[in-house]
């Protein structure tokens, strides 16, 4: 399958009062069309920074990337038209109704008023939000709000959907619902989903392929079973052990190369 995202040497250095901080040092990765890719890594490894660069929120200080055929540096507007992004915090005003947020979002994507209203209804149907449309978003449960966040990001039928820790803070039932939703998006619409997570069971159950970043570089990548075989020692290894081996936070650290 064709690559929908390819990044080469992507880097971001923040300048702070105590000197430069290399949040992302060099990320090379490829995401294939229709794939669910899980980005794993310890806190501070550069997951969110990578996601924010690929979604045009943050300009890279090095390297290059294309998203669905649009060059990140040369055509950020093109990238914005083809990707949706949900931050870990979500992105709705708690005082506004779900309907108003969805319609405004449609208008931000340059739909006419009538189109935006129709698209809001369509998204609400698809993401089981119909009964919640007239509630203030602050009154929604965590799982409901997460569905709304995703509905907002799907307004323009993006080819690529970026989700930053989409299930953090959700109860187990809502998490399972969200996994189903992500799979359904891929199966029904062919949407490529690029998500970060701290939950290894989530990565195992949901992602077709994993990329592990550590200290701002890619430390390993592959399908969950290939990673378990290579780093965990056997296909039956837990992803937990594999992860610890890759990120060098366990005795097997020496087995892990610094980058792949």
């Amino acid at each position: 399958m064709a690559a929908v995202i390819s990044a080469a040497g992507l880097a971001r250095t923040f300048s702070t009062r105590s000197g430069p901080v290399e949040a992302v040092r060099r990320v090379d990765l490829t995401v294939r069309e229709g794939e669910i890719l899980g980005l794993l890594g310890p806190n501070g490894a550069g997951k969110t920074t990578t996601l924010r660069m690929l979604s045009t929120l943050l300009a890279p200080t090095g390297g290059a990337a294309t998203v669905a055929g649009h060059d990140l540096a040369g055509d950020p507007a093109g990238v914005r038209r083809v990707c949706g992004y949900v931050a870990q915090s979500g992105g709705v005003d708690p005082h506004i109704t779900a309907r108003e947020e969805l319609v405004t979002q449609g208008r931000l994507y340059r739909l006419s008023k009538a189109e935006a209203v129709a698209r809001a209804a369509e998204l609400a149907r698809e993401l089981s939000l119909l009964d919640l449309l007239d509630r203030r978003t602050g009154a929604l449960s965590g799982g409901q709000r997460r569905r709304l966040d995703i509905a907002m990001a799907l307004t323009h039928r993006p080819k690529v959907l970026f989700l930053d820790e989409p299930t953090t803070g959700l109860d187990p039932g809502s998490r399972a619902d969200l996994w189903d939703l992500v799979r359904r998006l891929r199966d029904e619409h062919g949407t490529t989903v690029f998500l970060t997570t701290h939950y290894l069971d989530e990565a195992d159950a949901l992602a077709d392929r994993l990329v592990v970043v550590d200290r701002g570089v890619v430390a390993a990548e592959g399908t969950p079973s290939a990673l378990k075989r290579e780093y965990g020692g056997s296909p039956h290894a837990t992803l937990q052990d594999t992860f610890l081996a890759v990120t060098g936070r366990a005795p097997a650290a020496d087995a892990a190369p610094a980058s792949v």
Partner: protein
Amino acid sequence: MFLHDTALVYGRYLRQSLRSRFALLFGVLTPLLYLLFYGPLLTGLPLGGTGSSWQLLVPGLLLQLGLFGALFAGFTVIMEKGQGVVERMRVTPVSRLALLLGRALRDATVFVFQAVLLVLAALVMGLRAPLPGILIGFAFVALLTLSLAALSYALGMKVRTPQEFGPLINAVSMPSMLLSGLMLPMTLAPGWLDVLSHFVPFRYLVDAVRDAYVGRYTSAHMLYGSLVAVAFTALAVTVGTRVFRTAGA
């Protein structure tokens, strides 16, 4: 597209303001208190102007309303960053300038509305001024609040917490108020203070509005005030847009 985007962002935030009617009226409270309890002290004093003391005080209070109100506009963007609203909008194709201008125009609208309330109250207290002069005063309030709100949003995008934001704004607003002669004209000041106040842009604005309130529409004060107001607005919107385009760190 840019006008469409600006109107959209403006509409969103104006609806937000209209939802909190209390806050809409509350902003006018401080200048209203000055009008009621400070204004009467000036009526018998030799202030050096050609008009009444109200024609001197009300222009100052209008700019005070704008100065203290619009400088704090950026607080809301700090909250919105926490909610993720800012990033959610920044990944859409919406114009970056519209994200700033839609917000700042909302603020200008709210402050002109409050300025109208304040002038109505001043008329009751005894202000008499020509209508064109009063309208020119509102135009200055609009430009001042547009530019200060734009700068405030830019600062709000840069700082992480309201705790960092508040002291910075206070450090700007109090000296600006005192040094631009909002409460009493700087012509009363000793030489050094008068000179110092010429380095504060708001000095030129208040002088211009005071001239407008006594019907002098072609004075040098009016010319300088207009130039400073327009230049300051252009500068503020440019700075603000740059920050909205690149911010994220």
